[in-house]
């Protein structure tokens, strides 16, 4: 090989550093900002997210194993007396609720007949699906949990999630095998409620640090500390009458147009355990639409109500 060939060789990579750092920084920062805007404003990145999340799922499952193992080991060594106590407690609670539960079917039937008599729309039953909470999402800015039921188990976006004491949140993202539930205490989560005592309707929103705030009620609104708030069902998502929160403190400062009403969730919103994902509530048609539905060949609600009445 000639000497000229040697000279023509590329130099050792001392000086090969790619584009200048500042150029790289500009490129990647603008790309990241583009992603931020695309995700926040237009929500166009959900398919990408779904794809990466599905690829990551085996890793996440593997990482979860030692955590679950530690929890299982902990509960294995829970002593006998505490289990017996819990058992006795549960029996007592079951007995206390037996009165209500046994008459539930009878009351449901009666309610159905009365509604048919009054030509009101029948109340809908929604199916429920039990799910285990896998973990709380590792994001200090929001309050979300991940449960082990996803689109493979027919979980849909927007379904309500409850535990044995009340509403804990709403499904906000569905992956094939898991789904993400935004808790009621998240600052961006709101739920329409009414005061159980007098039916006053309002909106309850997360206020951060595990509390909630009843918004946009005038300073003289009839709310008292200790009042229980239940879902009003006006949103078409949550069933009406589910317990949500209890009012803890009210600040009626006349210099503000609204009272500041703080509440705490009734359900174990921040605790781990089992939850129930309620099926999607069907939106009842408006009265005019119901009229149209009767004319269609499929049997409308009013027609069904009439059929019930004639029985």
């Amino acid at each position: 090989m000639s000497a000229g060939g040697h000279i023509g060789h590329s130099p050792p990579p001392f000086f090969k550093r790619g584009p200048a750092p500042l150029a790289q920084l500009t490129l990647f920062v603008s790309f990241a900002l583009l992603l931020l805007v695309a995700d926040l404003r237009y929500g166009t990145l959900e398919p990408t997210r779904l794809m990466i999340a599905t690829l990551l799922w085996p890793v996440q499952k593997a990482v979860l194993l030692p955590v679950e193992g530690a929890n299982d080991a902990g509960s294995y060594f829970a002593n006998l007396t505490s289990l017996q106590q819990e058992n006795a407690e549960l029996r007592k609670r079951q007995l206390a609720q037996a009165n209500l539960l046994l008459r539930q079917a009878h009351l449901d039937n009666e309610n159905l007949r009365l509604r048919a008599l009054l030509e009101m729309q029948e109340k809908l039953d929604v199916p429920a699906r039990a799910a285990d909470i896998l973990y709380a999402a590792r994001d200090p800015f929001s309050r979300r949990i991940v449960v082990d039921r996803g689109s493979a188990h027919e979980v849909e976006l927007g379904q309500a999630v409850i535990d044995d004491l009340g509403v804990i949140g709403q499904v906000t993202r569905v992956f094939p095998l898991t789904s993400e539930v935004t808790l009621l205490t998240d600052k961006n989560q709101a739920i329409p409620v009414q005061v159980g005592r007098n039916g006053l309707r309002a909106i309850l929103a997360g206020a951060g640090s595990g509390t909630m705030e009843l918004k946009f009620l005038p300073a003289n609104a009839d709310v008292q500390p200790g009042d229980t708030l239940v879902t009003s069902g006006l949103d078409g998502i949550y069933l009406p009458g589910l317990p949500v929160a209890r009012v803890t403190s009210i600040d009626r400062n006349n210099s503000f147009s609204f009272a500041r009403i703080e509440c705490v969730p009734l359900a174990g919103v921040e605790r781990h355990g089992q939850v129930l994902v309620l099926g999607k509530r069907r939106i009842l048609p408006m009265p005019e639409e119901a009229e149209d539905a009767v004319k269609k060949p499929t049997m409308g609600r009013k027609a069904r109500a009439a059929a019930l009445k004639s029985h």
Partner: protein
Amino acid sequence: MIQPTHSSRRILLPVSGWFIHFTLVSALVLNLIPFGRLPGIPDWVALVLAFWCIHQPLKVGMGTAFFFGLVMDVANANIMGQHALAYVLLAFAAGGLSRRVLWFPLVQQALHVLPLLLGTQLVMLLIRMATGAEFPGILYFLSSFVAILIWHPVSLLLLLPQYRPVERDDNRPI
């Protein structure tokens, strides 16, 4: 570039790209462990990324940071681009500091890394606060302090495959 610190007499073997990526993926797996809202858990990916950007600025840079940031965004269910932006800025700052930081002993290196990690957290905080999230409390910043406490063992661990055997061989030039 291949010494634990520039003032050290010890010369290290060249690093393998395979090992760099292995450690970054391991950090990602550590980050996936669900600790819930427990404060003070270090961001392992940011720590390992800062380490490699300081030690190997030619091999690990903003591209790697951007990729691992995106994966973290999905894994943590954040806004897409939140970790990516913060990690890119971290990689830029760490790469710029790399020629200075390595002249210091490990403890003082950790003090150099602290503002980098705090800045990363601050960027994420600003992004989330601007989009209406709640302030997570001042304990949020604890994880950076925990991370620099373990900078010393993490540095030694990540440099382990590059150490030469200690025994001297007179026939070897170095």
